[in-house]
């Protein structure tokens, strides 16, 4: 699905990613953990195509195409989805209107026919139920006046609507109470198939009780320094990141 090789990226001349390698196959869930400032959100931003970051070295192959050569919207249309750590409020822009535009622009890109209004509304009903998002919220301005949990559920709702190949969840769990977390995780688990994949970026092991990863990676100082099965997350939770730092120093 995605193969990241020796990825280096910097912002304002400061190098954040320092040679990151990661391969994710269809049907897999990968968790990326790491201390603050390790480069977790930078990785998400670079993959989504945020222009503030400059990729100085390395390559990213996304299903046979060069991801880094594409604009943000092309990446989205090719099936990459980023659930934002801080979803943006956009006053006056209706959630479902923009989603409908997005879906139809993606369909046009793929040479498919536009989704009918009827089919669209049925999908909205089905997918908003999945994340227990009040259908009224679905038609309000994007994230405006939403609680933290509603914003994150809205991210997963959009993910469900767009049916991406690869989802990157950037700290989707932070700030959520246990009920909201369960709802979000349930949404992600329901959408999982052998044709799509997820990269779950988190600071806390708690999320991984609900979204069970196939692999856990530790990101530290711009590189993946350790990878392992899901049990690695528990070990990190127990020992903290200092343990990794010490191991690195050796």
């Amino acid at each position: 699905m995605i193969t990241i090789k020796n990825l280096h990226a910097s912002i304002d001349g400061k190098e954040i990613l320092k040679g990151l390698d990661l391969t994710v196959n269809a049907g897999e869930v990968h968790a990326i953990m790491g201390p603050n400032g390790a480069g977790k959100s930078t990785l998400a931003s670079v993959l989504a195509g945020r222009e503030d970051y400059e990729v100085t070295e390395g390559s990213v192959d996304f299903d046979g195409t060069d991801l880094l050569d594409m604009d943000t919207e092309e990446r989205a249309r090719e099936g990459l989805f980023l659930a934002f750590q801080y979803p943006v409020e956009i006053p006056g822009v209706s959630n479902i209107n923009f989603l409908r535009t997005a879906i139809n622009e993606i369909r046009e890109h793929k040479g498919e026919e536009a989704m009918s209004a009827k089919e669209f509304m049925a999908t909205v009903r089905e997918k908003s139920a999945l994340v227990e998002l009040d259908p009224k919220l679905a038609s309000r301005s994007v994230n405006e006046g939403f609680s933290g949990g509603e914003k994150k559920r809205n991210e997963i709702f959009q993910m469900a609507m767009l049916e991406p190949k690869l989802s990157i969840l950037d700290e989707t769990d932070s700030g959520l109470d246990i009920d909201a977390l369960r709802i979000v995780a349930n949404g992600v688990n329901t959408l999982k198939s052998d044709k799509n994949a997820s990269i779950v970026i988190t600071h806390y092991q708690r999320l991984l009780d609900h979204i069970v990863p196939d692999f856990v990676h530790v990101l530290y100082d711009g590189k993946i320094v350790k990878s392992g099965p899901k049990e690695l997350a528990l070990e990190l939770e127990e020992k903290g990141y200092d343990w990794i730092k010490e191991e690195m120093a050796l």
Partner: protein
Amino acid sequence: MLEGLTPTSILLDEKELNSAQNTLAKNQLPTTRMEAWKYTRVAKLGKTNYTSSEETVTSIDSYRIANDATTFVFVNGHFSEELSSDEIPAGVSISPLSACMEGEIGSTNLILEGEIFNALNTAFLTDGIMIDIEAKANVEKPIQIIHVLKGEANLSNFKTIINAGDFSKAAVIQGFFAEDADRAFANVTSEISVGTNAFLTVDKVQYEAENTSHISTEQVSQGKDSTFTINTITLNGGLVRNNLNIEVNGENCETNLNGAYLLKGKQHVDNHSVVDHRVPNCNSNELYKGVIDDKATAVFNGKVFVRKDAQKINAFQSNGNVLMTDDASVNSKPELEIYADDVKCSHGSTTGQLDEEAVFYLRARGLSEKSARQLMVSAFIGDVLEKIENEDVLNFTHSLLKSRFGWDFE
């Protein structure tokens, strides 16, 4: 500037004519040293030798804002009878000013002293229209005035007089257009009187050309229990200045002023408004929003007066601007002058660029950059457009937005 012009032959009030001539003799064009003209340069108007020639327009198909309306057409300010409606609805009398008898036009409350454009308009008035709405008349079809500038260096001094009788209800649409016009100038005045408990809505659509000028002054007076709404949509015109002066003279009035301006190129659009609350228990709402692209400049100056004994006034004023480029600029000055102590007034002004984080968010969902920006501009300006009740006006506005800016908001 005035050499090629002929003094008006319209039968205006003698005193006003004298006053206008006096002002023209004593005053020069305003300069940016004058507070009211600080951000708007009009010197180039003084350097143009204007004429006021009669031109013909063969069709008004592309200027017709409302299809089902009583329509009056003027080209360079001259009445075009053949393009105008010949049927006038019941309860209304409408006449070009050139057809008015002596004394019929009467005196007005247009300020002539020191107001050079009003004086120019009066002394050299080309023609205009007088609309009298009878008391209690409910005029269902809008009355549509279409003004077209045509030819080179033509000056149209045009006047609209609207008298909305007590308990009447009517809507007037004013459309300003240009056809093969070069350096033409529309200098327009409107005198509007809204009677007791009358409802009057004016929709003004300005769509002239990038090398034309337009200065207009609306002098409005409201009687008690009346509602006056004016929606000003400015989408084209090189230099545009709108002076909107509203005197609220009766209690329990409602006044709504909405404006949307979308500029590009080197356009300059200046909206100056004054709402003068002279009596208690009235509401006024002002919402102006602009999107300024390229090297265009906008000015907003909105003043609300609340006089000494005008208690229980609710006056709200808001101006918002989005600058699409680094070269676009706006000068926004909302002002409140309150002399009463039991009022609820607010004003605010915002100027910014489109939220780039929001643009990124929308693109990350698959929208093209153009769609993302269009969606956000549409949301921004939509607040004003949704105030327009007449669907024809709204649809026409959307069609202009599409043809001029390539923006499809619907």
